[in-house]
């Protein structure tokens, strides 16, 4: 028996000793991490993780430009007709897909058609706008719109171009008649793109490995990674242990702030910040009592201790999960109003607003605050909100929900909670999707529109701004929307959003350099522009 015990302890000792010898790889590897599932099917990608994957594996006609707006990408140039309805795109020559074939207008047209037929993912950006599409010649594509649509070019950054021949060769049985599943099954596992990185292996709940595509039409900077490994759903404790051991390079933005603070204090790891084109809001259900009362909503916003929150989300000087907000439209987007004051706490004003409202602590329903389980910060905001409301005599009820239940609760006015903290970032490099998703009546029933604003004036202003091709006039319209929203208070405007990431110091992320920053998270995680030293 003794011998067995000795043998065992010996074996354990050997294993443990050997473990400390790690293998050095000669490749430049970039390891990052995102929320629980990664989707690489370009038509279905919607969440952050998906967008980071798809935007590195696929190309679009245009790409987000550093500092805002769009720039030419696969489309070298374009012309827009007088009436703003017809777009002619001239394609770049020699763009290669990962299988070596060359992209032409047929692939572009196929990709547009696929999006419009499958009606999934970002289809809503094009729904009702794109009327027809055709290949004029192998290098020219014409897209015709039904109505003028100012944010159209920005929306095109969400229309990935797929390899037509590859998809057609890999159709499986499906609901699209002759086109079977439209390659959905194939593209969920393999890649049909032309992007800077190609998929080597993909397990959507664990790990995606991508390698550099050497024939990429833009080439590679000197320090670009050879291999990118994206993991999904790392727990806080696991991430910390992995990063401190050098098993991992860059965190996601979904961890709790104490984790970033602790990581930042370790040698070789620092926290960095990515200002984003979006906001951190507490969504207020404006139709469900008691928050259907404008004065109560204002009282909520005035009662909140913004300084305590700022302390909470600050990792160190110059790195925080947000910057002070003046209203719904963040500083980097069109319509932001510099003249408005920053949001701040004023208990007396809060009490005065409360007195104007119909809220009665005896008879009114408690204010239901829901936070979704993804991120500890939401729970803290919810708790602080509840504590601050208690100070002015408003009763609350806290609840936590996993993401699917949050989405489901948003389906009707009755099930949507009174308050929900949420970070929301524009889907394209334009303010239009952000405001439409948040406030337009046509977006109700979705998680991003838990405000149920249903305001005719906001609706018509937003619709008008979409059709306005003149930049200055368009901006004036958004300023009007901004003012109206500040008055209606459909959200507590906590911060202009920013992502905080912990990274190992041998990695430089594109957004660390302001000249390369787009403020669109998936474009800011451009692997090609990431430096690994």
């Amino acid at each position: 028996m003794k011998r067995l015990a000795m043998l065992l302890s010996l074996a354990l000792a050997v294993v443990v000793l050997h473990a400390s010898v790690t293998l050095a790889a000669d490749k430049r590897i970039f390891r990052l991490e995102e929320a629980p599932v990664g989707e690489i099917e370009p038509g279905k990608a919607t969440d952050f993780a998906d967008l980071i994957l798809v935007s590195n594996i696929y190309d679009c006609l245009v790409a987000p430009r550093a500092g805002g707006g769009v720039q030419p990408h696969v489309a070298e140039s374009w012309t827009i007709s007088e009436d703003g309805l017809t777009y002619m795109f001239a394609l770049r020559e020699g763009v290669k897909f990962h299988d070596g074939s060359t992209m032409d207008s047929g692939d572009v047209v196929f990709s547009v058609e696929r999006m419009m037929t499958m009606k999934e993912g970002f289809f809503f950006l094009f729904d009702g706008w794109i009327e027809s599409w055709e290949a004029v010649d192998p290098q020219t594509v014409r897209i015709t719109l039904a109505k003028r649509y100012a944010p159209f070019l920005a929306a095109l950054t969400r229309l990935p171009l797929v390899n037509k021949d590859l998809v057609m060769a890999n159709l499986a049985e499906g609901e699209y008649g002759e086109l079977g599943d439209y390659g959905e099954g194939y593209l969920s596992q393999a890649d049909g793109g032309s992007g800077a990185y190609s998929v080597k292996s993909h397990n959507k709940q664990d790990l995606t490995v991508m390698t550099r595509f050497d024939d990429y039409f833009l080439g590679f900077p000197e320090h670009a990674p050879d291999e990118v490994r994206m993991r999904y759903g790392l727990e806080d404790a696991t991430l910390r242990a992995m990063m401190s051991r050098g098993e991992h390079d860059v965190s996601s933005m979904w961890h709790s702030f104490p984790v970033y603070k602790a990581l930042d204090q370790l040698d070789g790891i620092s926290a960095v910040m990515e200002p984003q084109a979006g906001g951190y809001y507490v969504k207020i259900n404006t139709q469900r009592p008691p928050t259907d009362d404008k004065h109560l909503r204002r009282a909520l916003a005035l009662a909140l201790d913004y300084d305590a929150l700022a302390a909470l989300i600050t990792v160190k000087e110059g790195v925080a999960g947000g910057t002070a907000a003046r209203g719904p439209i963040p500083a980097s987007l069109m319509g932001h109003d510099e003249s408005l004051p920053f949001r701040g706490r004023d208990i007396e004003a809060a009490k005065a607003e409360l007195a104007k409202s119909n809220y009665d602590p005896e008879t009114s329903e408690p204010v239901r605050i829901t936070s979704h389980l993804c991120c500890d910060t939401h729970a803290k905001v919810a708790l602080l909100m509840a504590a601050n409301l208690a100070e002015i005599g408003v009763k609350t009820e806290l609840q936590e929900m996993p993401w699917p239940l949050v989405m489901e609760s948003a389906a009707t006015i009755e099930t949507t909670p009174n308050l929900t903290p949420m970070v929301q970032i524009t889907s394209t490099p334009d303010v239009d999707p952000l405001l439409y998703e948040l406030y337009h009546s046509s977006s109700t029933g979705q998680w991003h529109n838990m405000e149920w604003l249903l305001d005719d004036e906001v609706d018509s202003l937003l619709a008008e701004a979409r059709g306005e091709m003149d930049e200055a006039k368009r901006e004036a319209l958004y300023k009007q929307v901004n003012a109206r929203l500040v008055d209606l208070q459909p959200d507590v405007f906590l911060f202009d959003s920013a992502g905080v990431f912990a990274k190992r110091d041998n990695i430089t992320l594109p957004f660390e350099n302001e000249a390369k920053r787009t403020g669109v998270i998936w474009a800011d995680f451009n692997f090609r522009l990431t430096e690994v030293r």
Partner: protein
Amino acid sequence: MGVAGFILRRSAAAIVVLVGLSILIFVVARIIPGDPARMALGSVATPEQVEKLRNRLHLDESLPIQYWEFIKGLARGDLGESLVTRRSVSLDLIDTFPATLELVLAAGLIMVLVGVPLGIIAARYRDTAVDNVARLFALLGVVTPSFVWAVFLMLLLSFVLGLLPVAGRLSEAFDPPPMVSGMYTLDALIAGQWRAFWDAIQHLILPALALALAGMGQAARLTRTNMAEVYGRQYIEMARAFAFREHEIALKYALRPAMIPTLTILGLDFAVMLGNAFLVEAVFVWPGMAKYGVFAILRKDLNAIVGTVLVIGAMFLIVNIIVDMLTAYINPQIRLGRRVA
């Protein structure tokens, strides 16, 4: 009754249980309110998309019809589509099952190889300091939640001492070995990739240990109790009187009868480990079925929950049949087939 007949009977009983289990979990999964299609479609979904998915998943049909569709699919090995991964649940399970099996087997191995000797030692040195230390250790194993072990071991062995890797099954320097069993350690051995094998073992140690500790304590306690009871029997005294050597007595005469009740409980411990894998896999980013299951539960992914639960149930039943056979092998006096499922 022969062995074949025994296995046949037990398997038939097991299938009945599995059918019951499928009904149970299916009903639980469907009667509780909530629209899985709405939730599965993710952040942006139009009502038409929701309707499309509901139709595809037969969610608008009555419960018995839904179950019938499910059974029809099951017969083809089709567990339906996962609402989260949008892939066939069977494929997801085939992908994730070997990782969990590998983990649980390794944990089981540790549990038996460490727990049983610990119990034997404790019984042999009954009521001495050795016994007390062994018992205390065993008790700690039982009362400490496995997730506490997981976190503690990770912090100690990886974070503080830096000895073992934290997460995953293999370092990035290695590609997974050619697929044979899906268990990286075994496959690496088969392929003769020694370094990959070593790397996989290192990744396996922490989660397996975290998983094994609870069962290990239980195994040690039981072995001790049962051995102690056997030690009290007359034939051991007799053996002592004949001056048999102590370790011979322990292994030859005391262990065998003591193993029977222990084995039965080990079967149960295996179930506990399968459950605890749900807590441990997430901590170590072990891409197994249990992690998949937790995720499915948190995401209300109906088909995936049903699939995971069925596979776990089947695994559990198989282990119990094996335990029964082992018991019968160790003690031929126990008539095969006398025990009920």
